[in-house]
Structures are given as structure tokens and as C-alpha cells.
């Protein structure tokens, strides 16, 4: 109940989880520290006048209003199916790729659009309305500004979602009372099963993807042209990706270290510190606690199916049994693990 997607919570979707957390924290931080202006992208004045090209890289990192935030989070949450489909690391790589391509394409699209539109306006003005051409100032037209946020990435993923995630069921919504064709004289109220087969009514056939379509449509329209432009670019890139025309999309993978750091920064930092200790520190006994990340590494690297979780648990059980067996021989056993073992058995 209350579950809006087939996967419960963030089970085995560490990238989605990290993205949702980061989106929330970033949006809050930007708002509290009043840094919102730094992630806005507008050709005029930022790029033309002040040459702030870095805005092309920053504009996708966070949304700056509440309704966008809600839609974006909902979409990310739904797209965790894609993470299961691709596997976490591949999914993260694709997101990175989409982010880069979207930033570049969107900026080019905006510049070209702005230029051509300006040109058209100029032509129309000077030729059709015969307004004498004068030293007109640059005008901010609809291509000038877009809303910050990962709209392009989500659009590309939306295409992927439509292509790769199969529809599991269809359902119909009847928009009007079924009108029995044979006898509509006697009992209108009671619709018998026999009469239902012969009814014809207005109906709406929906699939289980329909919430995503609705949310995505809202996202496109949420900020007018400022959100339509990045979304269109995103859709375009998604399409190219589907046809495998996007360079690097097929087998490019992000470095494992970055990926590990992204999904669990705490653990990877601990891991680094541990390895430094192991190398330089005096090699006393290594507590059982520090071995924790070994099975977990497997966990995050391998594709995440429930079978493999079970497998992993079995392996863990085996490890435990072994631990029991060799307990007599292993003299080094810290107090904590001894207590835990008494409760485990």
C-alpha cells in the first residue's frame, strides 16, 4: 500500500538514493545561503556580457523552486527502475553522460535559437513593417533563459524509460456511463455483466506508466518556454541515445572510485583511511568490523537482484559458520564481536 513503484524504497538503488538526497540538500543549501543566482543560465547578460561560461556546467545541479523540486524528485524516484535495468554504475555513467551532452547541446541550441529568432525579428521588422534598421539593442527573447535543474537529463531518461521498461498492464477508465445498445428502456441503474459486453462508451486506456507521463508533462510545462527548451533538447538526446548514435554511450563507464564515492562517501572515505592505516600504521589485529565492506562491495558492484542478496546472505552465513568453527584457533577476537557472536548463534 502506498507504494508508487514496483521497487520498495531505495532497495538496491544507491544511485537514485544518492541523487534524491543530494537534490534535496542542494536545493535547501542554495536557498539558505542565497546562492540561487549562481546556477541561473541566461545568455544575456551572463554569457554575452560577463562571459560566465561556467554557468553552463552549474545550471543542471539543482532546482530552485518547490514545484520543480517535487516533480524532479518524483521522476528520479520512478526512474529507479532504470537503475535496476542498467545496473548502478552504468546508470550513473549514463546520467553523467546525459548531463554533459545536455549542457553542451542546450547551450548551443539556446544560442542558435536566440540568434535566428533575433534575425527573424529583425527581418520582419525591417522588411515587412518597414521600420528603419537602427542600432537596436540585443533583445532577450524566449531562447535567452532556461530554468535551472536536471530537466534535460530527466527528459533523456524519460525516453529510455519508455523504450526499455516494459508496460506491465493496461487499464481502462470509463468516462461516461456505459449505454446498453440493446435495451435502455427498463433498468438503467443495474448494469448486468451481460449488458456490459455490448456497451459502447467513451473510455481511456492507460498503462502503468501513466503517472510518469503526467509528471513529465507537468515538468515540461511548469516554467513555460524556460522549461520546454531544455526538455526538448533532453528528449532529442534521449532519442539519439536510443538509436545508439551518441558517442561514448555504449561502453563508457565512470571510474569505479568516483562511483563508489558518489553512492556512499562515508564508506569510501573510511575505506581509504583504513587502507592508509594498513599500509603505514602498525599492523595489529584487524577487527572484524573493518571487513564489513568486503561483502558490501560485491553487493554494490553486481547487478542487484533479490537472488543475489540471498546468495550474499548465504555466503555471510557460511562465513559465520566458519567463524564458529575456527573460533578456537583464532586468538584475536575483540570484545565487541564476541558479544555479537553470542547473540548470533
Amino acid at each position, binding site marked *: 500500500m502506498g507504494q508508487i513503484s514496483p521497487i520498495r524504497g531505495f532497495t538496491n538503488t544507491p544511485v537514485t538514493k544518492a541523487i534524491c538526497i543530494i537534490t534535496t540538500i542542494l536545493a535547501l543549501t542554495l536557498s*539558505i545561503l542565497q546562492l540561487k543566482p*549562481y546556477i541561473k543560465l541566461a545568455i544575456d547578460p551572463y554569457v554575452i556580457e*560577463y562571459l560566465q561560461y561556467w554557468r553552463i556546467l552549474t545550471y543542471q545541479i539543482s532546482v530552485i523552486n518547490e514545484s520543480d523540486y517535487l516533480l524532479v524528485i518524483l521522476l528520479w524516484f520512478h526512474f529507479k527502475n532504470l537503475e535496476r535495468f542498467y545496473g548502478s554504475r552504468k546508470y550513473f555513467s549514463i546520467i553523467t553522460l546525459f548531463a554533459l551532452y545536455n549542457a553542451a547541446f542546450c547551450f548551443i541550441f539556446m544560442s542558435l535559437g536566440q540568434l535566428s529568432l533575433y534575425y527573424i525579428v529583425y527581418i520582419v521588422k525591417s522588411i515587412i513593417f518597414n521600420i528603419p534598421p537602427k542600432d537596436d539593442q540585443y533583445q532577450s527573447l524566449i531562447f535567452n533563459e532556461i530554468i535551472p535543474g536536471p530537466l534535460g537529463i530527466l527528459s533523456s531518461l524519460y525516453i529510455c524509460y519508455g523504450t526499455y521498461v516494459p508496460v506491465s498492464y493496461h487499464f481502462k477508465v470509463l468516462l461516461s456511463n456505459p449505454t446498453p445498445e440493446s435495451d435502455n428502456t427498463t433498468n438503467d441503474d443495474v448494469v448486468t455483466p451481460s449488458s456490459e459486453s455490448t456497451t459502447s462508451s467513451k473510455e481511456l486506456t492507460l498503462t502503468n506508466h501513466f503517472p510518469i507521463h503526467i509528471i513529465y508533462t507537468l515538468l515540461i510545462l511548469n516554467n513555460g518556454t524556460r522549461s520546454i527548451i531544455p526538455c526538448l533538447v533532453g528528449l532529442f538526446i534521449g532519442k539519439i541515445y536510443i538509436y545508439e548514435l551518441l558517442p561514448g554511450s555504449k561502453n563508457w563507464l565512470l571510474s569505479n572510485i568516483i562511483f563508489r564515492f558518489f553512492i556512499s562517501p562515508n564508506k569510501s572515505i573510511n575505506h581509504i583511511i583504513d587502507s592508509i592505516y594498513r599500509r603505514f600504521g602498525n599492523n595489529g589485529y584487524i577487527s572484524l568490523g573493518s571487513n564489513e565492506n568486503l561483502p558490501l562491495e560485491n553487493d554494490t558492484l553486481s547487478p542487484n537482484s533479490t537472488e543475489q542478496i540471498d546468495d550474499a546472505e548465504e555466503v555471510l552465513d557460511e562465513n559465520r559458520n566458519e567463524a564458529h568453527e575456527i573460533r578456537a584457533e583464532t*586468538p*584475536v577476537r575483540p570484545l565487541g564481536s564476541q558479544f555479537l557472536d553470542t547473540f548470533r548463534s
Partner: protein
Amino acid sequence: MVEVDRQTLLFFIIMFIFLSLPSGHDQPHSTKERETLVTFQQQLLDAEEELALSQYSLGYGNITGFHLSYQDLLDGKSAKDWPLHDYGSDNEWIEDQKDSILPNSVSSKVKNWWGSERIKDHDNDRAYLLNISGRAHGEFQKVKDDDLVKYNFKLPPYLKEYYDNAMQIGNGNGNDASGYDEENGNKEDDKRSNNDNIITKVGNITVPNGKISIGIKSYGYNFINPDFSKYIQNKTSDEIDDAMVINLKLNLKDYEEIEDHEFETRGIYFQETGSLISVSRSAKFLGFHGLSHLTLNDSNFIKAKTLMSQFLNTSDIRHDFSMDDMNGYIIRSQEQCEIITYFQFEKTDYTWNQLRFIDDELINPSGKPIPNELPNLTIKDYLIYSPDCGIILTKTPEIPFVGLKSEVLNKKLRSLLVGILLLVFIQLLLFLRQIKNARTPGQLSTIASKTLFIIGFQDSLVALMFLLVSTLIEDLYLLIACVAVIAFIMCGIFELRFMVSVLTTQVNERGTTWWEILRGSTNGGETTTAEGTTTPTDNGSGPILPIANPPRPPPTTTTTTTATTTPAGPGWEEASFSNSIFAGGFSLTIVATFLILNSLVWRIQYRRIFEYVGLILLNSYWIPQFFRNTLKNKRQSFTWEFVFGTSIIRLIPIYYFNLVKSNPLRHHYDPVLVAVTTIWVVFQLTLLVLQYQLGPRFWVNEKWLPKAYDYQRVIHFKDLESGFSSEILNSISSSAKVPTTGGRESPTSSISGADIIESKCTCPICMTDITLPIVNTINDKNGVSENELKKMKKTYMITPCFHIFHNDCLENWMKYKLQCPVCRESLPPI
């Protein structure tokens, strides 16, 4: 059913007082008052009319306070005879003491520098500041002018009558029906009784020089500010794009800050000349209405006249002007000197257009590139003239009078707040880790609740202060509120919860004295803990689980204690604790907050003393923990991470405000305070570290201490025969055959000769070897080398049931249960 304890009641009473404070809108009580009010309103309206019709050449017109020129005053004329002069085309009003209220000595000085340098080119010339909002601080000196004659402005007769009546009522029965403070009334009366004594008047500076600080708030251009733009009828003449109305708060203090004079004035800032004029106003001196004639020339006069009449129009006098406003006017007229101020600013390094760009970005940040060096408020010269107190103040030469624009100040404050937010956040994380770390009753019982209380008190002070401040600074509201919320979450939720759990574990100490806790209750403990550990598993949680320090009720032992604590249940205890802590802490915080806010206006010496005492008290949080450790004979209670982290976090702000001279709150430079607090905190930390190193009771003479069970007693050779397992003897004999390594004498010889024999046995907890020193009784008299013994004693512990463990192993275990891990005999607490 709902039992409200005293503290909660107190809390509600305080809240009630807050809510029921008067709103400040007094209605007139009698027809007499109403008449006075209406007359006064009419007087103000007439003055407004007069201003609207005035011309520079025709003089002030009929405006209260401006009737007599300075020459008239010298000639001893009376304001009642107004008009004394008849201005016209042949006799134009000019800025001279013959016509003006400014004496020539003042006006000639002002004319020298005020508004003399006008910028023309907006693109190339270095311009004066456009947006003047900000604060500046400098010093003043009093100009000695013995010839200066004081004006004696008089209240209009009807107001005088009203005022006298009010005073009589105020004095007569102490029932201030008129809306005056009784205090004010008394003061006034005293003043009148000895007529010449007007020292108490605000602004009557008695010292030759002192400190001045100004706060300027600009209303913006009249065509942008919606209040003003309503009155623009004619675009060309009414829109003024190079001057604006400002609000200037002026504060004068002597160096000791014994005298403290605060004025609120309004005036005009001329952007093209970088000059500012402002005046005060009261019932006997309608400064705002006469201001435009004080601007020294005709073109300034027109701008000032337009702006001031628009400004005066913004408040609807017939509707909005209340009794309080009128009383304010009258009180000011009696208790405050009137002042006229002239400020001249320095040019900035930027041109007019650059400044406009910078101001736009500062007010509406959008990420435009602005220079790092933002222009400051720098005052080149100024003059403050008080006509009725006969005072002229000017700038002390050589001493800079500078300050920050309010946007720059806000920027600085913002980075300061981000720093504080970070500190508060780190403190929260530290606290969470500490709470996670200390969950067992054994650990909780050693934590001093006083320490937690002081820390929590500091945090609640931060929370409340920031909450109060958050409403004052609009631009930084979000950030300040964020700090307040995090601080509140920390003190109100986590620290409170932690303190409650500490108190509930220590509830068993209620009946005992610290002497008995010191003793660690060896014999009593056996029975109690035996009982305590069998029962708790079935009732789950609660304070009685493993009682590190079991209660010792005098006559009947354990059964009664368990009986008294169990039936009530842990919930009841916790609720009462959290209620009392919350109510007590909250009331204390409120009182302290008001004290601190109040202390801000104290003179500097008192403030310093308050700071020293307050900071020393607030930073003595480890002292209770030190005594608690001694009491419970425990080396460590908080983790070192928490101890050092908390101390450093609480010291950083003190360092910042006392050592960084340009801190935005303008706290004075005080390295002594820093040194004192640092030494005090480091001293406490050293005590804790020493306790860890030398043992918790290192500073107490052992003879004074009651006898407690010694876990690390010296084993003598003959002891081994009684009680200890034969394993030790075996290990000795076995090691006797094989020569041991490690640089010591071989045991074969040591059995007979050496003072200490080492014996090995296994710790049942970690299953590794323990080295036991055993004193050879034969050579006992030779004197065992104390140091070596001490060093070795640190590694092992022997229970009363003769089981041997590693020190760390058993101490860890004893956090959970006071029971021997081998034979389940109960153990005396450490």
C-alpha cells in the same frame, strides 16, 4: 488529571506576560485630550501647508521653532512677536544669522566643505556613494564657543497646559492616566524644580570628545519608493533623481560609555555633492518642515522642499497621528536637544555608473561580477549643531570616520552566520555520536548532568538569541532561523533526551550521599546488583537495569529500592525530569537572554566585567564532570572527540569576536578575554586528561578516601595458594623450566632471587595472555621497585572472586553488567 508543576506554571506565566503586553495604541481618554490632539494635528497640517508654499527667498514661514533668527535671539526678541521680518523681492531671505537660525559661526564652517564639490560627468568622474544606507563609526570633538547663545524654544501654550496637567496627574497619585510613564513624569518634575539643571537632556554632551556612530537608512528615489511616488503629479518637477530622503540614527557616547545619547533624525542626501543634512523634530521645533531652508542654497532648497513635503505626506496626520505620537513629540521636546547635522562624504573610487551597477547587484544579487573592494561609507567632515543646547560637535581630525554600506555589512554577517551554522552543525553531529557512544547505564551513570546542563544552556541561549534576532534582519532571516532551529533541535531534543537518560540512570543516587558513592559501596553492591540483574531482563528497560552504583537505603536493603522505583515505571521519571529540565532551562534562558540584551547598553566597564564573569561561568562545563569522575572513580566518561570538539567549537566564536578587529558586530579587541577563557578551558581539559592518565582520584589524598575494592591489588606469592586457580602456579612452574625471552632474568633464578615474578595466564574475555607480577614474599623487605609494579598493575584486574582479566577487557564488560563474566559473582563498581 493534568498536574502542572511549578516550573511549567512559571513558563506559562512568562508566556502570558509576553502575550498580554500592551500594543501601544492608546486612545485619547478625555475630551480635553482629544481637543489637544486635534489642535496639534492641525498645527502639523498648517506647517505642511506652509512648507508647500514656501520659497527660499521668503524665509521659513510660520513654523514652530523657526520663528526667531539667531540675530533676533541675540537681540532678545520674542517668538510671540512673529513675524519680525518682512521678506520680499527687495529683502530676500539669505543664509545669514540675521535671517537664519544658524549662527554665522556655524554656517560659515559648513559652507567651507558641505556640498562644495559637485560631480558632473557620470561616466568618468569619481562619484559619491549613491545608496547611502549603512553604518559608520568615528569620533567627535566639542567646539568651544562661549559666545554661542542657546535658543529657548517654547511649547505652544495649549501643549504646555496639557503637559503640565499630565505631570501633575503623574505626580499626584502615581496613576498615569495620561499615557506618560510615571518615571518620566518624576524626572520632568525634578528638572523643573531646579530649572537650570538640564544635564539629563539627551544630547547635552558634557565631555569634550567621544565616540559617534551613525546608522543611515535610505528611503530610495521618490519615483521608486511607492509611498512617495503617489505624490508625483508633475514628472519633471516632482521626480528627483539625485537626492533622497534618509533616516539617520545618531549615537553619541563618551569613551567610557557613561553618557549615551541617541537621536533619530530625518534628512536629505544629495548624491551629486555627497552631502547630507538631517534634523530632529519635536513639538517645539518642527525640524522636518524647516529643513529645506537649512540646505544653504536655492537649488538644494527646491529638491529638499519637494522631497520633505512628499515625505511628510506619506503619513496621514488626521488618521494615523495618535496620542502616542503626540506624547512622543512632547516628551522629545522636553527631554532632548534639537539637532541639525551636516555630513559630507568622501568620493569613492568608482564612477556614478559603476556605482549604480554595484548597488543593483548588491540589492538584487544575480551573479554579476562586482569588484572585491566595495566602496565604504567615509565621512570627510561633519558638524552637529544643537540650537537649544548650544552645542557644536565636529569631526576629530586624523581619526577616520568610516563604516560599511548595509549590503556589505549583510554580506559580512552572512559569512559569519554560515560559519556559526557550520559550528552548530558540527556540534550537533558530535552530540549524536556521543549519545550513540554512551548508551549503557554504566556509561550514563558517570556523566555529569551539570555538564550537560551548562552545554545545553549555552545552546538554548544561541537558539533563543537567534530566534529573537531573526525577526530584526530581514535579509538574513532564513540563515538566522536555520541556526536557531538547529540549535534548538540540539538543545531541545537531543541534549534534553540525553540529560533525561543520564538523570534516570542516576536516580538511584538520590538517597545516598557523595561519601557513599565515593566508597563505591562494596558490600552493599553485591546483594543489590544480584537482585538488579535478575529482574531487569523481564521488565525490559528502565533505569534499574544494571545499576552501576546501587542505591543504599539505610535500613532495609534492596527490596525496597526496587519496590520504589519499579511500580512508578520509567516513563513517569522521564516525564518529570524532562518537564523540570525544560521549564527550568527555558526560564533561565529567557532571563539570561534579557540580561545579555540589556547588558549591551551598559557602560563599557560593566559590560567587560559581565563578559568575563559570564564567559568564565559558561565555559566551566568540564568542572562538574571532573568531580563526577572523581566521585565515580572513572577515568573517562565523554569521548575525547566530544570533549575536545565541544571545547574548540565553543572557543572559536570567542576568538573571532575578540581578535578579529573588523568583525561585523564591532566587538572590541580584547586579547585578555581570549587568554583568560582559553586558559580556563585548557585548565579544565588538562584536569580531565590528567584524570585519564593518573587515575580519577589523583588529586585527592588517598588517606581521605574511603576504602574501596582494589581491582589491581598486588599479588603476593602466598596469596596464590588461597583462592586463585592453580593455572597461575602451573604457568610459573612451567615457565621456570623454559627460559623466557624479553630481556628479563630467567624465571628459574627469579623464583628464588627476584622481587617480582612474572606469571602468565589467559584472560577469559579475549583469550590472550596476561602477564601478572607476583611479589615474592621472601624478598618483600628489600622493597619492590614501585614504578615497575605500577606500570604492570595497569594491565590486569582481579575480581573479588579471584578471576583475572585484562584491564580493558573487564572495564568494557563492566559497562554492561557488574557481574563476573566467569562465575557471575557480582562485582563492586569501579
